[in-house]
Every structure is written in C-alpha cells, then in structure tokens.
C-alpha cells in the first residue's frame, strides 16, 4: 500500500491506505478526527466540509491522492479550544438542533469569512447553499455568521 503524507491541522500524518480513498474516511477512520461527518458521499450536503488551504471542500469526494501538500483544516483544528469567532457566535445563537451538520456548516462559513470578512445576506446564502440542515437551523446559522463577522 502506498504511503500518503497529509498536512492536517498543522501536523503531518502519514497514512498507508488506498490513495483513492476519500479524505472523509481517512480523517474519520484512520486519524480519529470524527468531527467531520458523512452525509451523502457525493458532495451534495456539505456535512463533510473541511478547509483545503483557505477553500471549503467536500472531503467525501476528495481522494487523498489529489491533496498533495495543501493544508487541511478540520473542525478539530479550527481553534485550540473551540473558541473560533464562528464557534463562539454559534454558541451565542444556540444554533444547533441535532448538531450533525454543524461542523460542516462552520467550516464552510470559515472559508466564507476568509474571502469575505463582512458578507451580505446574499453572500451568505450563496456560500452556504451547499450545506444542508434537515433540522432547519438556517436562520440561526446566518445570524451567527454575521455575529462572527462583527467580532
């Protein structure tokens, strides 16, 4: 089996797995980073969203062979103590219901704020389209993103 080096949350990991394996399953099953969730496997729901450098990507559809030396950030690496502005804003608005999609929502929002530190409602709608929430927490997600932008 080929060894693949991955730069995840500022640490280098070497995994010996089938290089066609999507990053999602490597994070969850080989590196114990289970905050990133499986929802659809076809980049349609956003539950598996992580950052690749500063871009949000769907880890369920990204084979590890395609990553190279790009920096991967997962929800576990977004902040030291779960106190990234988005995480604080999420708590302030008591956003989650079941919580399953929320790591993906937060990671997607993190990419948005990197490219647009003060997003409009429309910017948020456009950026967050790919992240489903079956519980329907969209309004609080939107409010929390605005709050995080205002910190």
């Amino acid at each position, binding site marked *: 089996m080929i060894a693949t080096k991955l730069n995840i949350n500022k640490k280098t990991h070497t995994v010996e*797995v089938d290089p066609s394996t999507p990053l999602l399953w490597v994070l969850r099953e080989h590196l114990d980073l289970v905050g990133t969730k499986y929802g*659809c*496997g076809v980049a349609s729901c956003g539950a598996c969203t992580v950052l690749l450098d500063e871009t949000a990507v769907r880890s369920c559809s990204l084979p590890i062979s395609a990553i190279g030396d790009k920096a991967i950030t997962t929800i576990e690496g977004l902040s030291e103590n779960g106190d990234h502005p988005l995480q604080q804003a999420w708590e302030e608005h008591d956003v989650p219901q079941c919580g*399953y999609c929320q790591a993906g929502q937060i990671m997607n929002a993190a990419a948005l704020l990197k490219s647009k530190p003060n997003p409009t409602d429309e910017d948020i709608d456009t950026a967050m389209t790919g992240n489903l929430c079956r519980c*329907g927490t969209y309004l609080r*997600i939107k409010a929390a993103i605005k709050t995080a932008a205002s910190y």
Partner: protein
Amino acid sequence: MNILAPFQKKSKDVSSQVFKASRRDFIKIGGMLTGGLVLGINFFSCNEKGKKISTLAPNVYLRITSDGEVVIIAHRSEMGQGIRTSLPLIVADELGANWSKVRIIQAEGDEKTYGSQNTDGSFSVRMFYKPMREAGAIAKLLLIQAAAQKWDVPITECDTENSQVIHKTSNKSIGFGELVETAKNSPIPALKDIKLKDRTQFNMIGHQTPIIDLHDIVSGKAIFGIDAVVENMKIAVIKRCPTLGGKVKSFDDKKTLSIPGVIKVIPIKGGDIPPTIEKPLSGVAVIAENTWAAIKGRDALEVEWDLGPNAQYDSTKQLEELTQEVQKSGTLRRNRGDFNKAKAGAKQLIEHTYIAPYLAHATVEPPNALAVIKNGSCEIWAPTQHPQGARDAVASALGINAEKVKVNVTLLGGGFGRKSKPDFIVEAAILAKESGLPIKVQWTREDDLHHDFFHALSVQRIVATIDQDNKLSGWNHHIAYPSISATFDAAVLQAADGELGQGATDFPYNVPSIKVETHDAKAHLRIGWLRSVRNIPQVFAIGTMLDEIAEARKMDPIAQALELLGDDRSITFNEEMVNGTYTNYGENISDYPWETARMKNVIQRVAKEAGWGKKLSSGSALGFAAHRSFLTYVACIVEVSVDSNKKISIHNVHYAVDCGTAVNIDRVKSQFEGGAQFSASLALKSEITVKNGRVVQNNYDGYQIIRMPESPKQIHVHIIDSEAKPTGVGEPPVPPFTPALCNAIYAATGKRIYKLPIDLTS
C-alpha cells in the same frame, strides 16, 4: 473490552468521573481500523482521586454525591429537539441545583427502570414533566430534612438554591454534598408530602437554557452513532433488494473479495411481507476493515434478485388509481348530520382532489448501528429513538433474552421517526453473530432513500357545500393512502383511526354535516411515520380547502375560522366516529380536551402579530392556516412573494403556539423555526417516486430538501403564556405551515395548489 461510552460527559466539563482509560494511537497501517476513542466511567463509588464517595439516589433520574455533584439521567433520545436539556432542567429547577455543575448521563434502553424511552409522538415533556418535577422535589425534601435536623430548625424555614440548602432567617447555608450521608439514610418521602414549586419560583422552567451539548457540537466533539467505535470493529455495507418483498436469488462475490480490506460477504435473510419494523430486508452484506472498502466491495457485488410481488409497482400509476378510487363512496369513518341533504340544498358546491407524494426522512446522519456479541450477550451503540424497542428486536433476532441485550443511545443526527424503527440495529446484531466480529452497519445516503420507511403518498377529495344563507353546511372528506398499519399487517388497506385522528376525523369545525370516508390503498413500500405523520397531507387539504371556502363565502379566512370554531367548548368527536375511536394522540380526551377557546386564542394572536389585513407591496401576500396536533394549538401566517419567473420567496412566518407550560422557551422556538423549514421542504421540494418497484431518487440531488437561499427568511414564534399541562412541540409546527404557504401563494398569484410539492410552472 474497551468501549466507547458515548457522551457520558457534560458539555465543557470533562467531568471528574469520566476518564480517558486509554487513547490509542489512531494512525493505522494498511487501512486497519483497530482502535478508537475509549472512555470509561467510574460510576458513583469513587471520585477522580479514588476517594470513596457516597451517593443519594432517591429515584432513577437523580444522584447526588457526597462530593456535591448532581447527576441527572437523560432517559430519552436527543435528536435535535433539546430533550437532553429540557427534562434534566426540570429536575434541576425543582431541586435547586447549580445547573452549571450538573452532569447529564444518557440512560441505556431499560423501560422497566426509566419508563417509556420511545422518543416519538412529541410526548417527552408531556409525559415526564410531572415525574421530573417530583424527582427533584423528593431529593430537595430529603436534603432540607437533613439540614433542618443539623441546624435544629423547622424544615419550613429552609429552601434550596445553587446546590445548597439555605436557612433564610439565620443566613446559614450548607452544600448538598455534606447532607448526602444523612439524607440517604432517611426514608423516601411520599409524593403527598412533597411540595412542588409555584411557577413564580421557577428559575429555569419557562426560561431559556442553552442545550447541554452545544460546545461539544460546535467543536466537533459530540458523539453520534456514526462515531461510536470499539476495538477490532469492522464495517458492514449492505446491498438490499430494491423492491419490497423481493429476495436474494444468488450472488457472486468473487470481485468483492478481491478488494483489499474486504473480509467477508454474508447474505441476510429477509424480504417478508408484511415487512414489520424489526426485520431486515433481504440482502448481501460486505464486511470490511473500513467504510470505503465496504462501499467498493458492495459496488463490485453481483446479485440476482427475485424481485417479488412489487416488481412492477409504479407510484405515478398508483396516484392515478387512487384519484379514481376517491371519486367513489368509501368506508364511513365519521358521520354527523346528513351530508346528502346538505348537498341537495346547497347554493354552491366546491370539490377538489389533493395529491401528495411519498416522502423520506433523509436524516443527515444515515442509519447506522454497532453491535458486539460476547459470551452470549449483545451490546449495541446506535442513534435510536426507541432503545427498548431495539433491545427487544435484537433479542428476538438473536434468540436470546432481552436481559442479555444492552442498548446504548448516542446522539442522533436527526430522527424524525426514522430512527424509531430498529431494522438497521437488527442488521448489525445479525451480522455480528454471523461473522463473530464487532460490526458497525453503515447505511449510505442511497440506502437511506431507497429503503426508508416512507411517509405514504396520498390522494384526498373534499366536497364542501355552502347553503342558501352562505353558511358552510357540509363537509365530505375522502381519504386514500397506504396505512402505516400495513407495515405490520399486509391485510390492512385503509387508514387507521390513529392516522385519521390527525386532522381528518378531528375536524373541529361547526359544520352541520360531516362525512369522512376512507378508501383502499395497498402498501408497496415500507410505510412509516415522519414528523407530524398524517397531519401533513390531511391538513394540507383541509387548510387549503377552508381558504377556498372562505373566498367563495366572501369571508376573511381568519374570521371564518373563528366563526366555524364557534362558542368556547370542548370537542370529543367519539360520538360521531363510526366503528372507531378518536385516539387524541394517546391521551384521554377528558385529560386533554380539544378546546375551541385555545384555538381561537392562537388564531387571534397570530393575526395580531403578523398584521393580518395589512397592505403589502405588490406581489406579496399573506396566507393563514391553524391546526391542533399532538395536543398543541398552532396558528400560522406565511408571507410570500412570487416573481415573474414563478420563484417563490418566503419573507415571514408567524406562529402562535399554545403548548401549555413551555419548559425551555428557546427550544420551543427552535422547534418551530425548524418545523417551518421542514414543512417548506415538503411543500416546495421533496418527492419520492417509484418505478418498477424501485425508488427513483438516489441522493440529495434527486430527493431535495430546502437549502438556505430558498428557506423562509424570518420566523417569529409567539408562545402563549400558560399554566396548562405541557404538550408537544416537535411535530405541531409542521402541519399548518404548508397550507398557510399555499394560501399565501394563491393570494399572491391567483393559483390554487392541489398537489405537492408545489410547482407553479405547470
């Protein structure tokens, strides 16, 4: 065995009694999944330093240790409704505990100990509000007695706050922990001797408390079923027969077994009709070291199916057949007055047929379950709404006593009724037995959409008569959909009383003649219950028809609703039921009557809050509907606009809700916010269709749920201040939203909606 004990810790508090027994290096060689997060729990006998502690355990829901720690057992399943917070806070409020230091532990499935754990039907708070208050109050009395004895003061002069007993006149206080030793040796007080708080004394009930799992969720640490891991666990992904009642004829696993990481292939017996909720479907399981190998192994599997009796089934054709069927006379289920007479004397007759599709639950966490069998016992970790049901089903499938099965409940990544069925848990148990390995069964999204217990498609016809005096004189509701009962008994062809009692037979309005009739509709898929169940189609039809009747009568829809509800009264329905009963969501109608005054109150409140009748900009309009479900009264007004491309924008949603005592205000609001979004999905987006017995939609691209840009922009929840017994809030937001939306669309465009999901382009 090292086992992950899901979230036996409180948010932000890696508690003193939870320790990480070992945390293995998780970097594996060759794709092996051989370890995982391991938590152990040292339960109540020692503190973290190993010092012996004693415990006051006055009832099954509460422990107070001599270290002063208050531990509350959450015995119902958390799926986003906030119940792991809302029930414990009731105990804590009555007890006078310091909430920031309370530790919540999730109970395993054990209904003999905890009472019903079937988290379904919006009844957790309704059923356990009083027992939780009593649990807190009993402990409070024991602690107060101990303190009063110590201080030699009357118990009436003592109270509790912040996990202390206080003596107000002398300003003395003592922590709960110091009283445990004395209190635990006192007899448990009788319920008649305890005094529950007056509502003015509540510190938490009726206020807002953030969910206890909040920090864990936003930092990615919350443990769902999919995250549960045990040592040496293998993953199973199953290829199931695409048609209901079909079976595996033969299979070739040569290619599958050549995929690295695949361990073995095991066929699963099943495919019975009726399917029940406990039995697996017929299929072939691929057991692998990891999920990706299992998925690839399944893709490579070649299976020949005996497709069984539903191989030709087509849902579009069934809708056409049911549309014909409801034109006939059906089985009379409720009868008042003489509808034929009303029809004969009518000035105007309004008649429409309403069609709604199959729906899937599509929880973002698909079904999954972990089973370990060791020494004749089975231990399960699963995101289940009904751990006791799962326990019994696993015991039955394995042929062992239920006492030998332990079901641990993880957080649920959505439930909505899907995860009350134990079929996926039984699959894991069967495979663990057959393989001799710890097995996690993982459903893919495709599995979930193809093999759900579906919300049934439906066709309804309503005939309404308006008499010479412009009164609504007659109401005839014809109903055809495959019954949930058919999942258990294939001979059932018509709706059950419990299904009809979700809007149809409990039609509350003062109409002189009412006839509800049901028609045959055969089940061709596994039929289940989805958030608010049959209220969805029935209230879609009723709520839009009432709007159309108001227009025909040249009346305001809200004025009409108030008129038709009539004088303040309690309605019982039973005397008009034909060979059946009104089930009232499992409660006695005398305990929870259908009260017109409460419904009129929420209607008037929502009209006021939404500014009903106000002038809106061109293209925008309001729509109204109201409904009581799960004993909660809800009125809803939706504001929409429709642009020249027929794009629907939902600007505002107003709800007024009377759920009796509201326990955690913020979670009541969040359930209504989410309920509106859930209803918006089914109104605008979601549809399951079936061709050749197979579900057509494969993933979220085909089975759509609402996304942020098209979701309602503002949702306002107005809660009636009430001292009445609490009733459910998980499901009641869903039913009235859809007809209110349809009525708003009509007001904006002049187009009536008779079919879901809404399509303005056709």
